[in-house]
């Protein structure tokens, strides 16, 4: 890893556009992904995440624009598998091939030494299943095998499309630690998801897209905003007045449709409890709510105009069900 310069790990999406017939899947999208950190690539289903990743990997030809890794297009990389590891949703495995054989085929193609196969099987926790046919694998095991494939070439850049799909809670926890570890080694890690909470504990930076366009790119901390306190009281008006008297900077919002439920921004639960106690206001609920990124996410993705009536782009359709071996 030491040999690599910063520029080698830089992933750049530059005015990228992709049109599938009438559907504009990706619309003049630009962003850059830095090495040494985990970047979350977020957007609702059909936002164009998979199409963008596939354009980065040369699988889908852009209608216009450029996507580069370390300054060159994927197809122009001398040894693509040792430069970029990709884990794509619709990457299949032959059901009749064993996990180890799948990796051996890849290693042979890329000229990677065969000994590396067992190393990545260990890394992905798949060693015990190495000689089993993939047809008998659970979704989680397939994800681990996809990840092992991505790591085969010890790449500087990792592009992972919904890698948490199908993983059990332990698997997700393992994945989080693993991605952090990889980024800590100076690698570029771009991980897509349509569920923000899934990557919230892992990512340093967030790129949000919706309907093919960039909505926001920011460090995670910038998106989180101030914490919120939730209270339920039979006397909301009195509490609101007491809060305003105590600290005019607090923002108090009533939750519509919920009798007596208030969200108080800018305060800690202890502050609110003290103020309510001092004013003699009865409280039924009081808890601090960590800034709900999911809400931020929904809010920022909703800022863009409503989707056209046509069908979502075909690229994010679920893969067809696994079939029996041919």
């Amino acid at each position, binding site marked *: 890893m030491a040999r690599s310069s910063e520029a080698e790990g830089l992933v750049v999406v530059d005015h990228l556009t992709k049109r599938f017939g009438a559907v504009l899947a990706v619309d003049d999208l630009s962003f850059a992904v830095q090495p040494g950190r985990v970047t979350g690539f977020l957007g609702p289903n059909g936002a164009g995440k998979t199409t963008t990743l596939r354009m980065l990997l040369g*699988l889908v030809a852009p209608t216009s624009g450029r996507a580069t890794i370390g300054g060159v297009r*994927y197809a122009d990389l001398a040894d*693509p598998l040792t430069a970029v590891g990709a884990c794509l949703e*619709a990457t*299949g495995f032959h059901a009749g091939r064993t996990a180890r054989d799948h990796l051996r085929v890849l290693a042979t193609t890329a*000229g990677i030494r065969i000994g590396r196969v067992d190393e990545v099987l260990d890394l992905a926790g798949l060693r015990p299943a190495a000689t089993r046919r993939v047809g008998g694998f659970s979704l989680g095991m397939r994800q681990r095998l996809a990840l092992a494939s991505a790591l085969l070439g010890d790449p500087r850049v990792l592009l992972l499309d919904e890698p948490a799909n199908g993983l059990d809670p332990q698997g997700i926890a393992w994945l989080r630690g693993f991605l952090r570890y990889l980024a800590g080694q100076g690698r570029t890690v771009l991980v897509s998801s349509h569920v923000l909470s899934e990557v919230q504990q892992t990512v340093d930076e967030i790129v949000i897209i919706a309907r093919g366009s960039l909505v926001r790119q920011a460090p995670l901390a910038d998106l989180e905003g101030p914490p919120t306190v939730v209270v339920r009281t039979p006397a909301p008006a009195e509490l609101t007045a007491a809060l305003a008297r105590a600290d005019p900077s607090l923002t108090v919002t009533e939750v519509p449709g919920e009798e007596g439920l208030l969200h108080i921004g800018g305060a800690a639960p202890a502050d609110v409890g003290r103020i309510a106690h001092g004013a003699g206001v009865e409280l039924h609920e009081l808890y601090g709510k960590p800034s709900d990124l999911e809400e931020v996410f929904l809010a920022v993705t909703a800022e863009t105009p409503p989707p056209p009536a046509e069908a979502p782009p075909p690229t994010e359709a679920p893969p067809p069900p696994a079939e029996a071996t*041919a």
Partner: protein
Amino acid sequence: MSRLILAELLKVRTTRLWWGLLLAVVGLTLVGVVANAVIAGMEISGQAAGSLDDPATIRRIYTAGVGTTYLFTLALGVISMAGEFRHQTITATLLATPRRTPVVPAKAVCLLIVGFGYGLVSVLLGVLVGAPIVALRGGHARLLGDGVPRAIVLAAVAVALWGLIGLGVGTLIRNQIIALLTAIGVAFLAEPLLSLVLNAVHAGRFAQYLPTQATAALTSPAPAAGGLTTMYLPWWAGGLVLLAYAVIFGTLGAVITLRRDVT
């Protein structure tokens, strides 16, 4: 390129398809060879099957398995590409080979090697089983003369070339089931029927360019198949015609299919 060919060979070796097909090749070859060797020289419904004294009959016995073996290399060729789309392994293949041009040639070389192997198994089995029956029935085995060695080698070559035709079909038609049904339906039913009809209406000069007729030209021409006079190309022209089909399908497939987006 050599890495790609090795990887393709590994792909073939690491699933059970190859020996399933090989088992079928062996079984059907046995049936074909025994049947041909037993009825040679007999009179069936007023028509004499080729005499055991005729070298062409002996060649036909040894290469009798080719009449079914080519279907299995055809299937292997179809699956070699269409299977990548079916199992979505095409993504991994193209990630490793983003400049896509070598993908089809690498598969072609692999299929020639494996297909030639299948062909050899079929014709060697043909000799192994056919020669004793011929000898038992009082014929000459002619193992080293009368064009027998050449017929045997060319039969294996023909079987290998059908793998390339399959590759072309599998590249053009990405749906594996449809590609398989189309390839086998055409090669086993439609096309032999067409050549029979063409020969029946004295248009054999067109029929001889059809792939199964070109195959027959390469292996063991039966001048009076089905009671009709049948025209065949010279063996080398038959080989070239087969190769041409393989190259045309493969190139068309590579140009049309492999340029597309893989989603």
